[in-house]
């Protein structure tokens, strides 16, 4: 019995080895072929000779700008939504609230029921937002931000026929990505809010503070590391997504850097796509392609690492009983 079981457990263990192996193979392949091509020149220069030479600075710059704007849009909104879900909604579930209403017949309970129902629907909406395919976000960016909002803005502010906002650019790409990463921020922030001990809130209210004052001065500062984690994880996710920006502003080759919100931009992930599938000379651009993938992976992993470290510190704080 023991021996046969050992075999089975061994098989299970092999699956873990397999996963580890896959990771090592992919990362190893990129590191071997890409690291050698990455140099200071590579990071700071523009592409030249039909993308077969030069560097990827515009792509790095474009990705950074995009992700910065995305964070400015997503984090305040995400934090606000999470605060609403955690601090402003009743703790009862809709069914519990409804039962109590039937028992007590008070209008207050009815109100609680509706608020609880709203909270449940909001949570479901956040979960569903997280599951929307990235290409559908791209479609939404095109259909709503560009065609609807952008064209309306052009009609209002530009001369007839001029298209400035009714096309892909940094602003719309950033907003599309912000929507995509919103659930990440919300979930991370809620987790962070949860680590703040309830006693602190109770003490604050007992001393006469309003709910907003409690949030602003006690809860948020205490939850800041977790909020930071959420922001960083959102950034690392946003830096890697390509499908949403295909039609909302990413460009193949720009001789200049994006300086305004209405500019197109180059992007690391998009560059990988282009070099892989539309490269002018597949063999010649391979080193550049590997180099770009390497830079993209390093960037993504550093961000992920930062987020994980901060989250681990927040969690240990929870275990040790709060700040």
């Amino acid at each position, binding site marked *: 019995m023991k021996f046969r*079981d050992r075999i*089975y*457990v061994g*098989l*299970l263990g092999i699956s*873990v080895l397999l*996963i580890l192996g*896959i*990771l090592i193979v*992919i*990362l190893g*392949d990129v590191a071997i072929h890409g690291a050698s091509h990455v140099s200071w020149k590579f990071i700071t220069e523009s592409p030249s000779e039909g993308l077969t030479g030069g560097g990827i600075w515009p792509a790095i710059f474009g990705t950074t700008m995009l992700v910065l704007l995305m964070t400015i849009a997503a984090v305040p*909104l995400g934090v*606000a*939504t999470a605060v*609403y879900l955690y601090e*402003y*909604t009743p703790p009862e579930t809709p069914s519990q609230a409804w039962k109590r209403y039937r028992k007590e017949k008070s209008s207050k309970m009815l109100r609680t029921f509706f608020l609880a129902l709203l*909270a449940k*629907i*909001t949570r*479901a*909406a*956040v*979960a*569903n937002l997280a*599951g*929307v*395919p990235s*290409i*559908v976000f*791209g*479609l*939404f960016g095109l*259909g*709503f931000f560009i065609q609807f909002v952008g064209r309306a803005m052009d009609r209002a502010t530009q001369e007839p026929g001029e298209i400035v906002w009714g096309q892909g650019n940094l602003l719309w790409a950033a907003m599309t990505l912000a*929507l995509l990463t*919103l659930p990440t921020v*919300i979930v991370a922030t809620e987790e962070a809010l949860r680590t703040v001990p309830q006693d602190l809130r109770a003490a604050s209210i007992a001393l006469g503070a*309003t709910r*907003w*004052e409690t949030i602003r001065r006690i809860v948020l500062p205490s939850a800041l590391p977790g909020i930071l984690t959420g922001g960083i994880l959102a950034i*690392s996710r946003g830096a*890697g*997504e*390509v*499908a949403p920006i*295909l*039609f909302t502003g990413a460009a193949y080759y720009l001789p200049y850097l994006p300086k305004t919100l209405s500019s197109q931009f180059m992007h690391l992930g998009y560059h*990988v*796509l282009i070099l*892989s*599938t539309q490269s002018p000379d597949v063999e010649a651009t391979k080193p550049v*392609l590997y180099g770009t*993938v390497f830079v*993209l*992976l390093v960037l*993504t*992993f550093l961000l*992920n690492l930062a987020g994980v470290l901060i989250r681990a510190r927040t969690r240990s704080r929870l275990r040790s009983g709060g700040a």
Partner: protein
Amino acid sequence: MNRGRHIRDNLMTVVFTAAGWIAIVFIALIFLFTFKEALPVFNAKDLHEFFVKAQPEETMEMRYIWQPVSDEPKMSFIPLILGTLKATFVGMLFACPIGVAAALFSSEFAPPKLREFIKPVIELLAGIPSVVLGFFALLVLATWLQSAFGFTYRLNAWNAGLALGIALLPVVFTISEDGLASVPRTYREASLALGASRFATAWKVVLPAAMPAVFASFVLAFGRAIGETMILLMAGGNAAITSFHLGDPLRTLSATIAAELGEVVFGDPHYSALFMMGTLLFVITFVSNSTGQWVIGRMQKRMQGTA
């Protein structure tokens, strides 16, 4: 002074409540605007063309055709839907057993130090952008598979499906592992006390108890697979054929949108058809994700004893 603080408090309550609405508003907007651009083709004739119409051709392969740029545009979704399902099938075939096996090992047999090592490995895997996985499958994996199995077509369902499976592994692992870890210790202790071996306990007691979580992980992986774009676009071969053979190239709904949206004139039937595909993707993933969330919700309630 008191009134000022009061006003500010009420104001912020309004602000936060408004923020709470944002998620609902945007989910509704996404559906609305995707569907709005698809409206021109939401009629009996076009829907028939998308889902039912077959060409009067001999070969099975050519019966349903997606060729929108043609003197006689043919816009059947069937080859694309089939392609999506093929890739998802292969992906889940790879990810589900391995993901659950790894989760079981990690939760029941791995010493704590090893468990703390496995988690970041999975997170690293999850952090790889899908465009990088597609790049890897296109350049490296396809060549390996072809030399190992002698496929006629270098870019096919196996290649794309395998890369997709790599992307799905973290989803299956994480949720299954959470579920396994949430099984009460008493279950294990009772089983061991009754004389069962550790493996028997894990396989026959803990795993069945965590079935809702495992099932939910499959459902969520399914949703992710259906919507995945980059991997399929780069590694699938992009041939819209109606074939069940996994060695054939495929083309998915998402890859079609990604490849063709750039060339359509806004308002064209082709444009509306692509948005219709987007709506379809949205609905499928919405249903599948809602199911997964519902199962997880019930599981959590059961664990907390309020079910």
